[in-house]
């Protein structure tokens, strides 16, 4: 059934006609209930509480069930948005979750971390009528959470085991979604992870207050339940090579090794003590639990913390610093707030929590004391010039205008490069000058036929949903490729 036919089904038509479009658009957009900003910046619990069933059903009424649902064009994996929303309106929450899972492997995660305001919600027809878009992200989260909490997680149908071994490198969203799809098709899937924890950025990067680890673990357990095996502390290319995997009978390898290499600015004083990458900071706090007293890993608890950058990683770092007791937690960003790549909600939340935003400021030097510990940061004042290649107005220096602020910790969050371990260790891969692996756009197959790749290792720092989409695309293509080889 295509989406037009589905939309014509009696239950959908009946629901659609039960209310006038005008009544629907007149309902105000739901507000996500959240912890009080003053309280939440002293704990690590999730900021958003999630919608109640009542609120979710009310919000679902706002959706017009468009004949031409433009929201779906905004979704990188083409989730059948009006269908899942109409299931919510009807109170069929488990059905809604099932609809999400037809296209998305990790709806509870994506409902929380996708930049909806740039994707589906940016294309919602409501915006054309000068109304706020349907809260698609909140509804996605609701349906996925409802399913998990109900204990009725739909166990996917798993095909007869075909005995063919498949290896996955990396357990981030790309690797997890690939593993899930392959296991469902009957393959014998093993995921190899370099770290001692499974989940990639979802675990070591994105903090608990935005994405509780327990939810990621549920997804991992679901994968285990359908036969996916996980091996931690194993670096492909080091502990085992891809050649060895091949010799060991693995029929295909999917590389989802992410963009783990932090970039620095290469400015004076950047190697002072107290200046670190957001990856180091977040890894210490999230993966190594360094802030808890019984952890052996230390983390410096700054009182005046500056975070450089305007992306999600910067927001996560600065809000973590606030939670760890910083009196001043500052974002220094070289463009204006409008150009910030972070999710809108995170910027709002950060502001509510008292994060200071110093925009149009570019660090040019860190100054330290005689023990080599950072004490000041010099900022170049910027202004916006002409739009650059990315379409964002590029910042230009205001000649001679600088500011010096006192800090005791600086977290550099100016982007990441692809993890070089795999590109360095596999012969024959085609690598771009940015260090990403070149793959076929449709199949995600690399220049080495047995190797498929997706997520940040192919795109550079991107998003969870794109990584997940790549994983699923690669699974479908690898299955086809393997079966072609057999026939």
């Amino acid at each position, binding site marked *: 059934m295509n989406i037009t036919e589905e939309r014509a089904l009696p239950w959908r038509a009946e629901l659609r006609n039960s209310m006038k479009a005008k009544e629907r658009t007149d309902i105000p957009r739901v507000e996500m209930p959240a912890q009080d900003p003053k309280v939440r910046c002293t704990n690590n619990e999730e900021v958003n509480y999630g919608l109640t069933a009542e609120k979710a059903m009310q919000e679902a009424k706002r959706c017009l069930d468009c004949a031409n649902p433009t929201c779906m064009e905004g979704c990188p994996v083409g989730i059948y948005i009006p269908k899942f929303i109409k299931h919510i309106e009807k109170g069929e929450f488990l059905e809604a979750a099932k609809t999400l899972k037809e296209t998305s492997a990790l709806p509870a995660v994506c409902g929380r971390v996708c930049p909806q305001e740039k994707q589906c919600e940016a294309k919602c027809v409501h915006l054309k009528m000068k109304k706020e878009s349907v809260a698609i992200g909140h509804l996605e989260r609701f349906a996925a959470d409802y399913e998990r909490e109900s204990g009725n997680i739909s166990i996917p149908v798993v095909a007869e085991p075909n005995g063919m071994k498949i290896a996955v490198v990396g357990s981030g969203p790309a690797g997890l979604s690939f593993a899930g799809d392959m296991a469902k098709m009957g393959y014998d899937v093993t995921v190899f992870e*370099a*770290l*001692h924890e499974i989940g990639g950025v979802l675990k*070591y990067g994105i903090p608990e207050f935005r994405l509780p680890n327990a939810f990621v673990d549920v997804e991992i357990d679901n994968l285990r339940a359908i036969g996916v095996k996980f091996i*931690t*502390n*194993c*670096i492909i290319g*080091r*502990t*085992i*090579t891809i050649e060895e995997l091949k010799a060991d009978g693995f029929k295909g390898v999917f590389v989802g090794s992410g963009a*783990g*290499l*932090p970039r*620095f600015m*290469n400015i004076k004083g*950047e*190697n*002072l*003590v*107290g200046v*670190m*990458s957001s*990856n*180091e900071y977040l*890894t*210490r706090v999230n993966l*190594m*639990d360094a802030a*808890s007293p*019984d*952890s*052996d*890993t*230390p983390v*410096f608890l700054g009182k005046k913390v500056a975070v450089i950058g305007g992306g999600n990683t910067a927001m996560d770092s600065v809000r973590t610093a606030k939670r760890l007791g910083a009196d001043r937690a500052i974002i220094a960003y070289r463009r204006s707030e409008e150009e910030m790549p972070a999710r809108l909600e995170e910027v709002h939340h950060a502001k509510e929590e008292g994060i200071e935003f110093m925009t149009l400021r570019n660090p040019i030097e860190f100054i330290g004391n005689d*023990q*080599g*510990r950072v004490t000041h940061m010099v900022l170049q004042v910027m202004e916006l010039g002409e739009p650059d290649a990315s379409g964002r107005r590029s910042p230009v220096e205001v000649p001679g205008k600088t500011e010096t602020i006192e800090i005791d910790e600086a977290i550099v969050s100016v982007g990441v490069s692809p*993890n*070089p*371990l795999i590109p360095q260790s596999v012969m024959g891969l085609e690598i771009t000058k940015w260090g990403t692996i070149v793959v076929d756009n449709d199949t995600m197959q690399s220049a080495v036929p047995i190797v498929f790749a997706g997520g940040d290792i192919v795109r550079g720092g991107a998003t969870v949903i794109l990584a997940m989409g790549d994983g699923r695309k690669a699974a479908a293509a690898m299955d086809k490729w393997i079966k072609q080889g057999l026939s």
Partner: protein
Amino acid sequence: MFEVEAPLIAKSRKAGHFVMVKVGEKGERIPLTIADADLAKGTITLVVQKMGVSSSKLCNLAEGEFITDMVGPLGKATHIEKFGTVVCACGGVGTAPMMPIVAALKKAGNRVITVLAARNKDLIILEEQMQELSDEVIVMTDDGSYGVKGLVTNGVESVIQREKVDLCVTIGPAIMMKFVSLLTKKYEVPTLASLNTIMVDGTGMCGACRVSVGGKTRFVCIDGPEFDAHQVDFDEMLMRLGGYRDIEREDMEKMKCASGVN
């Protein structure tokens, strides 16, 4: 000294490689050089010196107990070829990581002179093994309680003055490597230093291990651990190593209290 079961690592490791080890759920990940490997048994050997909390926890493990997490081999393997005469200058924590390098250099046909240094006699470790692997071992102690009295640099200098040295390899406390490097620079002896910076992940993910080499920021865990010593900014490295000293000391106090040790 530990022998740890790790067949995959034993198979793929080369001289100069290290592993990241974590003891306990809330343990810290610390880098340790693979001193030796036994392919038949599928084991690797680690030599650990008690420094702070994590190394002590490791040393307190009894035989048969498990290391919670271990991953490797990491880092770039030492470039081994026939150089001629090689002086291996090591002290303190650097002695263990030097062992596989001495062995590999010797195997490649080099004349290997090992300078083993420590503050006093009790702190000299692995002398016997080094004697076996090297052509000559010069033991140096700060207080003269054993071997020759003097610093590691005195030992190295005596060799350089006596014969032509083609390469020097140095591993030890950053301050020691700094002075070895200054010395060999004076005599224009190419020198490799294996840097033991602070690490978190050991896989290139965090940048905690970064150092300036030839004015460029490099990551020790993936670009190193060995670098051209004459290009390394040791002062910066020393400064960065001190970064967590206060917190580490507090943790150590806590552990001592908890275990009743003093």
